[in-house]
């Protein structure tokens, strides 16, 4: 079989490209939902992590340690076949919860690092000038934190997309599962896997591109101002 024939069998025959796109859509949905939930939760955990109360701080530390230290597949299996086994939650929802928890731990930690790296002198100066605590945080600290956290957050998003490849273990047919099914049906595992990898790569570079675009637009706005 020539390469062209193999590609036809994998991608075109029987409209298999539609099934691949369907799997890709599932991957994007789970990633997007988990990212939004995980970021909000991560910010909240970061806030707890920086509190003076040792119990609150301790809880946040343990939360981060457990979720960052556990393989995401183990966590997914535990939640799906254990914790939520009789809860009646759809597999996709359990997957979103799992990845949101995992992402929240990473986001909490990267926000905490960014907070520590932000210039405290500027915040003190703002307070001295009469800014409220909230305004100081919003106008002085937060922009710095976001700028410092951005590259790591970008990597977190790309990692999240890759982590979702294990959802086949909990009956979800995502991009990886479709690629595996296609490889089994066509008996062309290497070529099919390469195609799958290229799709994941494209997705990752779209994320990189979006961040680069946002930097470009911001610089443009700053130059115009």
């Amino acid at each position: 079989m020539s390469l062209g024939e193999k590609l036809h069998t994998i991608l075109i025959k029987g409209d298999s490209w539609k099934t691949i796109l369907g799997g890709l859509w599932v991957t994007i949905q789970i990633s997007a939902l988990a990212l939004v939930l995980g970021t909000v939760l991560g910010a909240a955990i970061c806030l707890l992590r920086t509190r003076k109360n040792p119990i609150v701080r301790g809880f946040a530390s343990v939360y981060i340690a457990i979720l960052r230290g556990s393989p995401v597949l183990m966590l997914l299996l535990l939640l799906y076949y254990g914790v939520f086994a009789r809860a009646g939650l759809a597999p996709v929802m359990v997957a979103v919860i799992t990845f949101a928890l995992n992402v929240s731990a990473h986001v909490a930690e990267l926000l905490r690092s960014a907070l520590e790296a932000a210039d405290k002198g500027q915040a003190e100066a703002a307070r001295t000038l009469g800014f409220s605590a909230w305004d100081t945080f919003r106008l002085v600290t937060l922009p710095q934190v976001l700028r410092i956290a951005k590259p790591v957050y970008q990597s977190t998003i790309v990692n999240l997309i890759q982590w979702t490849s294990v959802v086949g273990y909990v009956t979800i047919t995502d991009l990886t599962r479709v690629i595996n099914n296609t490889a089994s049906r066509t008996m062309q595992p290497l070529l099919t896997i390469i195609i799958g990898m290229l799709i994941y790569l494209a997705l990752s570079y779209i994320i990189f591109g979006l961040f680069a675009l946002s930097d470009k637009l911001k610089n443009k706005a700053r130059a115009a101002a």
Partner: protein
Amino acid sequence: MKKVTVVMLIALLIFSVLSVPALAGDQGELGRLTKLNVDEDTLSEAITESYFDLVPFSRYRFFDNLNSMIAALASGRIAGMALDEYTAQYLLSRAGEFAIYTPDETVPSYNLNFSMLLREEDAALCNRISETIEAMKADGTLDALKKQYIDDVITGEDPEAVTLERFDGAQTLKVAVTGDRPPMDYFSEAGEPIGFNTALVAEIGKRLGMNVEFISIDTGARGITLTSGLSDAIFWMEAGDYGNWAKADVEDQPENTIVTSPYLTGAYTLVVPASSPLAESNEK
């Protein structure tokens, strides 16, 4: 701190160098799909005298799914792989770079029995399924399904989609499918489960007046779907003609599970790269 870092780096380097032999692997290995309850070392040891001393392979290397095993064979990481005859024939019909290796008569061969695995507590359902399978054997339905979903598919025909009958208010039989063993269990271009196993279960469901639901699951998680109750049954393959294989293969069946009557038998078949000298020879 600097000294600690240097010591750790040296330790890591030594570990990496010492690990190379283990990581290199043995390329005379025979690939096989992971068995649930026995590891590759135990199984290989159990049959070294009766099998591996007689064939040009050193031991088993387990793989979690068919794709990774085929990739390993294609890349030369293993010298051959063990499959049932139907999947082997399907592979040869779809990918021309493989061939079957037939050892000489001195090497024990055996047949694989295809059946379904259920939880022990579902013994009544298991018996009903077994009775249905025997009835399907007797009236020729199984032979007809085999021709349509295995023989014709191996020769290149596309199988018909499996239609499931719906029975209002009936119990649902949930069966896990992995898509990992064509032509028995795989997915169509449209993402629907197809294959002999799915056609078989559809017919069983129809005869028992049960609704059938297929649960798509990764091969590595099929055991847990059964034990957790997510599925009522999974497809199972075990060795018939036990002889020296008995201890190793019987130990594979998980505890608290029961097996239906076999619905199909297939020969244990060895596949090698078409370029392998074994492809042209029947002797060790």
